[in-house]
């Protein structure tokens, strides 16, 4: 009995080491260079748009890439390797996220090299290591049957020199082809209530759009010192962000990020061809909702201490009551043992 309590105590103590805050430091928009993994999430099934983020460095799993790109990820309670919610979608009315999501409503996982077609990933989010310079896509699939799967409605961005490869060669005919590039909304990494987009020295820099094959036209981004409040969300014109501008964007965005993951609204439906969409994007991006307001998240150490104290008190009560009631230990040589050999003593008397 004592060993049971000791082992449980050691387990609980070692788990106390593992409470870490979520990482921060991602940048909006696709990854500018060959390092980092671009993550595309298509919220079209919920009436939203496509959001693009960049997980810096080399994330070790698809899950880490999602978290590194500042998406709020939740796996199913019973099987955490099954992705259930991204940024709170689908919410509890559709999926309680206890069991793994059904095949008729789930987040499908797509991978692609930059500039190539989307391929349906055969491994799960924790089962593969995305290469830096590749693109990961998540798109929510509803409905059953083969016609239900659809790749994210985004291009896979222009290839960069030195980018990695997924190593998967999928036939363009068998995978869902990418739709015409839609205006994508880069991940807002700004705290709610503050002015969105403090960062961008390049007004069109972070607001980069998928431009497959479109030659980088348009003006070069403004000087890094300029602080425009919102990026323009354009659809057809693209600007290849210069690395210096985006590097400036990176550092400034990271300085305005709060430590807690924030969430942008899923209702951001950017207008397709609206070139002058400063106002649009501002109101779209500034509707930031805190998706975890409805959750009673984990409490602090005081709550844990109280709760565990209650449990320990009840368990100690059980041990004490047991000791007090059965003072003679159930030893082999005690009275109950020796005379318990008869038929009536061993509990097999059928008449009770």
């Amino acid at each position, binding site marked *: 009995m004592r060993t049971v309590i000791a082992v449980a105590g050691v387990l609980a103590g070692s788990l106390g080491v593992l409470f870490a805050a979520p990482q921060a430091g991602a940048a909006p928009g696709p990854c500018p260079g060959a390092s980092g993994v671009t993550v595309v999430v298509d919220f079209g099934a919920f009436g939203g748009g496509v959001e693009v983020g960049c997980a810096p460095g080399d994330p070790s799993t698809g899950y880490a890439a999602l978290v590194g790109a500042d998406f709020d990820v939740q796996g199913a*309670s019973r099987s955490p390797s099954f992705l259930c919610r991204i940024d709170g979608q689908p919410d509890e009315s559709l999926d*309680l996220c206890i069991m793994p999501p059904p095949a008729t409503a789930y987040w499908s996982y797509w991978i692609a090299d930059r500039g190539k077609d989307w391929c349906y990933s055969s491994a799960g989010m*924790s089962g593969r290591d995305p290469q830096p310079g590749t693109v990961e896509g998540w798109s929510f699939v509803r409905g059953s049957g083969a016609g239900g799967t659809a790749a994210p409605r985004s291009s896979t961005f222009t290839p960069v020199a030195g980018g990695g490869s997924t190593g998967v060669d999928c036939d363009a005919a068998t995978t869902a082809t990418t739709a015409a590039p839609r205006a994508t909304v880069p991940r807002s990494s700004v705290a709610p209530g503050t002015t969105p987009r403090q960062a961008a020295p390049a007004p069109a820099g972070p607001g980069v759009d998928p431009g497959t094959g479109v030659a980088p036209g348009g003006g070069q981004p403004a000087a890094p010192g300029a602080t425009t409040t919102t990026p323009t969300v354009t659809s057809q014109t693209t600007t290849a962000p210069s690395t210096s501008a985006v590097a400036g964007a990176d550092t400034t965005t990271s300085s305005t990020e709060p430590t807690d993951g924030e969430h942008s609204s899923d209702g951001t439906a950017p207008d397709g061809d609206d070139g002058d969409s400063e106002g649009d994007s501002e109101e779209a991006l500034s509707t930031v909702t805190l998706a975890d307001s409805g959750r*009673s998240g984990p409490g602090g150490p005081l709550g844990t201490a109280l709760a565990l104290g209650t449990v320990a008190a009840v368990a100690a009560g059980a041990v004490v009551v047991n000791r007090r009631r059965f003072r003679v230990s159930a030893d082999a040589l005690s009275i109950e043992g020796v005379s318990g050999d008869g*038929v009536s003593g061993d509990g*097999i008397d059928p008449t*009770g």
Partner: protein
Amino acid sequence: MLHPGAWWIWALGMATAASRTTNLVLLALILAVVALVVAARRGSAPWARGFKYYLYLALIIIAVRVVFRVLLDAGAGTTELFTLPELPLPEAAAGIRIGGLVTAEAVVSAVREGLRLATLIICIGAANVLANPKRLLASVPPALHEVAVAVTVALSVAPQLVVSAQRVNRARRLRGDVGRRTHVLRDIVVPVATDALDRSLMLAAAMDSRGHGRARAVSVATNRAITLSVVVGLGCLCVGTYASLDATLGWALAAPMLGAGLALSGVGLVLSGRRVDITRYRPDPWSWPETAVATCGVLVAGAVFWLAGNDPAAINPSPSQLGWPTAPAIAMCAVLLGALPAVLAPRLPETALPAGRLAHP
């Protein structure tokens, strides 16, 4: 001496509550409450002494779960612990992964699942320890008598094994065999298994000599009616259960099938009860302590179910959030309700005398 049905209802209520949650603190509290009630109200009969083996079994279950999760699929998380060497699998098995990254979130979720299963088993073990299995057999209605006989003999295997292990241990200690090199199979497993089997056969023979297996003759028509109604009833129950779980068929098919299945099975059981010719001698009474104990179990189960619908994030916490484990105060109060049988049930004589008529007032 409480009616055994009350203990079983209480234990099943606690088990139902445990099956609905994966909150570490809540599960640990259910465990502690069950242990408290067992300590306070168990008898000193040999079959009532095996509770610590259920606790050992619980620890083994948690350990096995964690080991399998670490080996097979522990990558879903951000707090990386270590990386096991990955076993390369052919492309056809691309969805399976052996080894690889191990994250803290996955380990914690495995501990949660293991603790849930362990709590379930401990609740059933508590029912075994608190409720006299022979009195339970005596309280079953005649229609279920034959089933109950088989279940009782099967249920007595576990406590029987415990008793046999204690006897074998005692004999070895008296012989001086403890401390020398032990061949586990030859010295412990074989004697214990043989002893348990012998005692089970003795129990069956004793029950048979008292007339437990005898059946009264009924007409051929009644026999046919019994068979037909039971088989068709079970078929309807199967179809109804499947329909209730399937999303497309829905309740339009499930409800009538389940109703028809229950009705037909009930008719079959009542008819087959006519074949059994037993009377009950001094049946256990069911009075207010029994109702109170059973109500406690049902209330705990109902409260946890309601809270799981109301506050799912606390009762079934997300595996991707590692934080200070806690449970809502209302859930903890509801579970503490389940400790009331420790005072509501009648007290047993606290004696170390051998079990027998003295221990069953």
